[in-house]
C-alpha cells in the first residue's frame, strides 16, 4: 500500500476496534415470592445462569425466594420493561415440584435472573441446575443433587446423600450422607460429618482431593492420583499412582481419583 503506511493502517484498525461497542441501559426488578410445599418432598430449581444459595430453615413455611431480574435495553424504560417481561414458573407434579425461569424469545439474551437466597424446609430433597454460578447449600438435610457447568460448590448437610457434578469449579462438601462428586477442573475437599461411616466417591480431572474422615472403621480405600498420602489410625502410607486397602468388613467406600493431582486422606481431629 503506497498511499497508507502499515503503521497508519494498524493504528486505524486498533482505534476502530476499541470503538466497537453497544450503547445501552441497565434495568433491575426485585423479586420475592413464596411457594407452598405442603405435599412436596422434592424440588428442582433451574433458574438459568444464576448462583444458587439454598438454606434449610425450620421456620420457612414454604419455598421463600428473593432475587432480581437484571436487564439491558436501548433506553432506561425499555430495560425496565424487559426486566418485567420474564417470570418464574412453579410447577407441581405429585410430590415433585419445579421452579424455573421463563424468558420469552423477545427478551432472550437481555434479561438474567440472579437468586439472592432460597429458604426451604430442611427435610426437602433438592435438585439444583445452573449453567453458570456458584452453589451454596446450608442446613438442607434431604438429598442434594447439583448439576452445573461452571461454578464452585459448597454443601453442608445432605444427610440423605449428595450427588454433585461441575465442569469447572471447586467442591467443598461436609456431609453425613453418601457423597458422589465430580469436577473436571478444580479441587475437592470432602469431609465426613457426624459419626462418619458414609461412602465417599470423588473424581477430579485436574486438581487435588482432600478427604477428612470421622472414622476409619471398615474402610474400602481405592485411590488413584499423582501423590497419595493416607494417615488414619489403621492405614498410613505415602505413595504414587495407585493404592487400595480394605479395613475390617470394607463396607465404607472411599474411592478417589485425581489423575492430574494429589490425594490426601486423614482423620479429623476430636
Amino acid at each position, binding site marked *: *500500500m*503506497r*498511499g*497508507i503506511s502499515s503503521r497508519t*493502517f494498524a493504528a*486505524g*484498525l*486498533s482505534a*476502530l*476496534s*476499541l*470503538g*466497537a*461497542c*453497544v*450503547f*445501552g441501559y*441497565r434495568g433491575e426488578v426485585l423479586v420475592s415470592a413464596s411457594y407452598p410445599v405442603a405435599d412436596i418432598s422434592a424440588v*428442582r430449581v433451574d433458574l438459568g*445462569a*444464576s*448462583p444458587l*444459595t439454598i438454606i434449610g430453615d425450620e421456620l420457612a413455611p414454604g419455598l421463600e425466594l428473593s432475587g432480581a431480574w*437484571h*436487564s*439491558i*435495553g*436501548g*433506553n432506561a424504560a*425499555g*430495560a425496565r420493561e*424487559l426486566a418485567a417481561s420474564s417470570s418464574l414458573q412453579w*410447577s*407441581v*407434579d405429585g410430590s*415433585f*415440584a*419445579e421452579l424455573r425461569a421463563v424468558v*420469552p*424469545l*423477545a*427478551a*432472550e*439474551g*437481555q*434479561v*438474567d435472573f*440472579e*437468586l*439472592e437466597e432460597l429458604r426451604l424446609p430442611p427435610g426437602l430433597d433438592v435438585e439444583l441446575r445452573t449453567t*453458570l*454460578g*456458584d452453589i451454596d447449600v446450608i442446613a438442607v438435610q434431604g438429598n442434594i443433587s447439583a448439576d452445573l457447568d*461452571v*461454578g*464452585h460448590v459448597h454443601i453442608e448437610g445432605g444427610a440423605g446423600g449428595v450427588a454433585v457434578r461441575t465442569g*469447572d*469449579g*471447586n467442591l467443598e462438601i461436609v456431609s453425613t450422607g453418601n457423597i458422589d462428586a465430580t469436577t473436571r477442573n*478444580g479441587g475437592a475437599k470432602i469431609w465426613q460429618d457426624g459419626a462418619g461411616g458414609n461412602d465417599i466417591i470423588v473424581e477430579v480431572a485436574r486438581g487435588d482431593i482432600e478427604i477428612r474422615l470421622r472414622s476409619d472403621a471398615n474402610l474400602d480405600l481405592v485411590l488413584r492420583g499423582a501423590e497419595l498420602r493416607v494417615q488414619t489410625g489403621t492405614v498410613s502410607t505415602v505413595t504414587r499412582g495407585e493404592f487400595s486397602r480394605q479395613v475390617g468388613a470394607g463396607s465404607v467406600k472411599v474411592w478417589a481419583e485425581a489423575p492430574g493431582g494429589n490425594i490426601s486422606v486423614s482423620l479429623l481431629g476430636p
Partner: protein
Amino acid sequence: MPAPLAPPGTLELAGTRVGGGPVVVRDAAGDAIATIDLRPGNDVALTLPPGVYSVEDSAQGGRLTLSVEPGKVSRFELRPDGARGVVGEGPRALPPVGPQPATATSSATARPRWKRVGAPLLSAGLPGLGQMVNRQPGKGVGFLLGALALGVGAAVMMGTSGGTDVSSKGLGSNSFGTEAMGAVGYGLLSGGLQMLYAAQIMDAYATAAGVSGPRPRSKHRVSLDLTRMATIGLRPGDPAAGFFPDWSLSVLGQVARRFSVGAGDLSIKQGRGFERTSIQGGLRLHYRFLERDRVWLGAAAGVILQGSFSRPAPLRIPEDAPAPASEGSFAAVPYAQLDLRFFIVDRWSLNLIPRVSAPLAGPRFFNGPGDRAVPSGAATLELGTGVGVYF
C-alpha cells in the same frame, strides 16, 4: 574478475492524454522502480540499466513491455486512446494497449504452474507453508509465528472473562470494564488472525503467479464479501460485557461505475441447543469513492432484516403439560458503513468495515449462544473484517 558494466540506456515517458494519468515502471522482476503522474508537456527521462521493463497505464489498465538498450533511447507515450512504445533507434510500434492480458515476463513463465494452486492451498492448510514452497522461508516462518501468536493470544483473551471468575453471586455489572477490555483484546487478536490468514493465502498465490502489483478489478460485475462484523455488547448477567460476532455473506452487483446494489448480511444463526434460529438478510447500496493503487475506499447504507423463531424446550413438570408454543421475533437494523479494501491479488481484497447501526422493533441476535443480543433501540458501533472477491 567482475564483468564490465554495460552503459545505461534511457526510457523516455511522454504524455498527450488530456488530464494525464499515473504510470508505473517495473523491472523484469516485477518490482516497481518509478510511479509517475504523466501529464502533457511534462515528459520524464529515466536512465536505466539495459534490460526489459514494463510500463503500466494504471488509468486504463494496460501494460507495455519495452527493452532498454545500452546508449539508446526507448520511448513510452501515453495517448488518449491508449499507449504506444518505441524501442531503440529504429522505431517499432507496439500494439495499442487497452484492457488486455498482462504480458508474461520471462520470470513469470519460469514459475511452475502447479504452485499457483498448490501454494495457496498449502498456506490454507498451514499458515506460511505456501511461502516456504515459493522459496520464501523467512516470510513463511514469519506468517506461521504470527498466526500462532495471534491464535494463542486470542485463546488467552477469550478465557479471561469467563469460568469461575464470573460465577460468584452479586458481581452485577461491576466487572464491566475488565470484561469489556478482555473482549476487545479477543476481538482485535482474532480479527488480526483472520486477516493474516487470508492475506498469507493471497500472498502465496501472488508470489506463485508472479503478481507483484495487483490491478484491482474496478469494472467487476459482481462482488462477494465474507465478513465478520463484531462489537462489544452489554450482557444482563455475568460477564457484564461480551464479544458479539456476526458472520455473514454479501452479494452485490455493480450497476453503474463505482456504484453497487445487492443483498447484504446474509446468514443463519443457531442459538444454544438449536432452540432458536435467526435468519437475516438485507439490502445494501454501496459507492466506491476512492480507487488508489491497491486500496479502495467506499461507503454503504442499508438495512438488515432479521427474523427469529424458537421452539422452547418441553416442560418436564407436570408430566402431561402441553408443549409450549413456538415464538417469533423480528428486527430491522438500518446501518451506515465505510469500507477500506486492500488488494494483494487482482480479484481478492482484505476488507475493514466500521459500521454504525441500531436494531428497531426487536432485538438483534448475534452468532453463538442465545445470550448475545443487542436490544431494540441500542445504538451499535461495529467493526467488520473479511475478504471480498470480484467477478
